[in-house]
C-alpha cells in the first residue's frame, strides 16, 4: 500500500512538472489562416491589407505565462492590398523594398503586467520590431489564449493530441520611424499605420 501511494505521488508530481513545462508553439499555420492585418488612412479610402506569410515560434508555459518568449516573422513579399498596382508600389523600392528587406520581425523581450483569467492571459509585450531593416523597441498589448488539446479538432483529426495558442494584439507605428517615405506623401498616405495580429500557434504532441 505504501509503495502504491509513493508511486502515485511520484507519477502525479512528474505529470504536474511535465504539464508545467514551457511548450513551443509553431506559428506556421497548417490551415493558412495566420495573417497580420494593416491599415492606414489615405485619399479616397483607407488602405487595408494582409500579410499571410507568418512563421516563428513562441514558448509558452500556462503555469508561468510571464516567462513567455519567442519570435514572430512575416514575409514582406506576402503583404497584399486589394489593388494590384498599389501592392506593386508598396513592395517596391520607394516603400517597403521587399527584395532588400524580406522579413518583418517581432522578437519578444518580456511580458509585463501579466494577468490570467481562465485560459486567457493579458499582458503588455515588449520587444524589438524590425521593419524595412530598422529595429525599434515597441510595446504591444496582447492576449494569449491557451486552448489545451484543441490541435486535433482544428485539423479534423481528433486522435492527434496537442495544444493551440492564439495570440491577439494591435498596435500603431509611424512609417517614417522605419524609413518608409519619412515626411513624404503625408497628405496622400497617413504616416500612422495600424497593425493587428490574430494568429494561432500549434504544439502537436508526439
Amino acid at each position, binding site marked *: 500500500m505504501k509503495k502504491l501511494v509513493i508511486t502515485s505521488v511520484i507519477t502525479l508530481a512528474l505529470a504536474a512538472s511535465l504539464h508545467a513545462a514551457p511548450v513551443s508553439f509553431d506559428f506556421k499555420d497548417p490551415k493558412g489562416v495566420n495573417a497580420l492585418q494593416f491599415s492606414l488612412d489615405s485619399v479616397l479610402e483607407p488602405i487595408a491589407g494582409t500579410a499571410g506569410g507568418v512563421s516563428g515560434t513562441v514558448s509558452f508555459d500556462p503555469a508561468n505565462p510571464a516567462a513567455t518568449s519567442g519570435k514572430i516573422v512575416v514575409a514582406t513579399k506576402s503583404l497584399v492590398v486589394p489593388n494590384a498596382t*498599389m501592392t506593386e508600389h508598396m513592395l517596391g523600392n520607394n516603400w517597403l523594398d521587399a527584395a532588400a528587406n524580406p522579413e518583418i520581425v517581432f522578437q519578444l523581450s518580456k511580458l509585463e503586467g501579466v494577468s490570467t483569467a481562465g485560459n486567457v492571459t493579458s499582458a503588455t509585450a515588449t520587444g524589438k520590431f524590425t521593419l524595412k531593416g530598422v529595429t525599434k523597441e515597441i510595446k504591444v498589448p496582447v492576449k494569449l489564449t491557451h486552448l489545451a488539446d484543441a490541435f486535433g479538432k482544428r485539423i479534423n483529426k481528433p486522435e492527434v493530441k496537442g495544444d493551440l495558442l*492564439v495570440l491577439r494584439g494591435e498596435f500603431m507605428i509611424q512609417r517614417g520611424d522605419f524609413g518608409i517615405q519619412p515626411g513624404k506623401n503625408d497628405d496622400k498616405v497617413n504616416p500612422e499605420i495600424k497593425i493587428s495580429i*490574430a494568429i494561432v500557434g500549434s504544439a502537436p504532441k508526439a
Partner: protein
Amino acid sequence: MKRVLQTIALGLFVTTIGFWAFKGAHTGWSQNRVPMSKTDEVTGIVYTVYENRYVPGIDLLAGGVGLASALFAVSFLLRPKNKTDQPT
C-alpha cells in the same frame, strides 16, 4: 468626323458609368482581388481570404468620364463639313 467623335464620347461615357454601376458602384479604388472575412471555428480568429475578380473603382470611372469629356471637347475644335463642297 465631329459627329463620329461625339458619338464615341457619348458611348464611352455611357459604357463607363454602366460598367462601373453594374460591377457594384464601388466608391473606392479599383480592386483586383476582393477581401472577404471568414472565421476559424476552433480559434475564433477572423481572417481574410481574397476572391480574384475585378471591381472597378472611382479611378476607372474618372478615367472613362474624363476621356469621354476630352473627346467631346475636341469634337468642337473640328471644323464642320464645308457646305460648298456639296454637289449642286
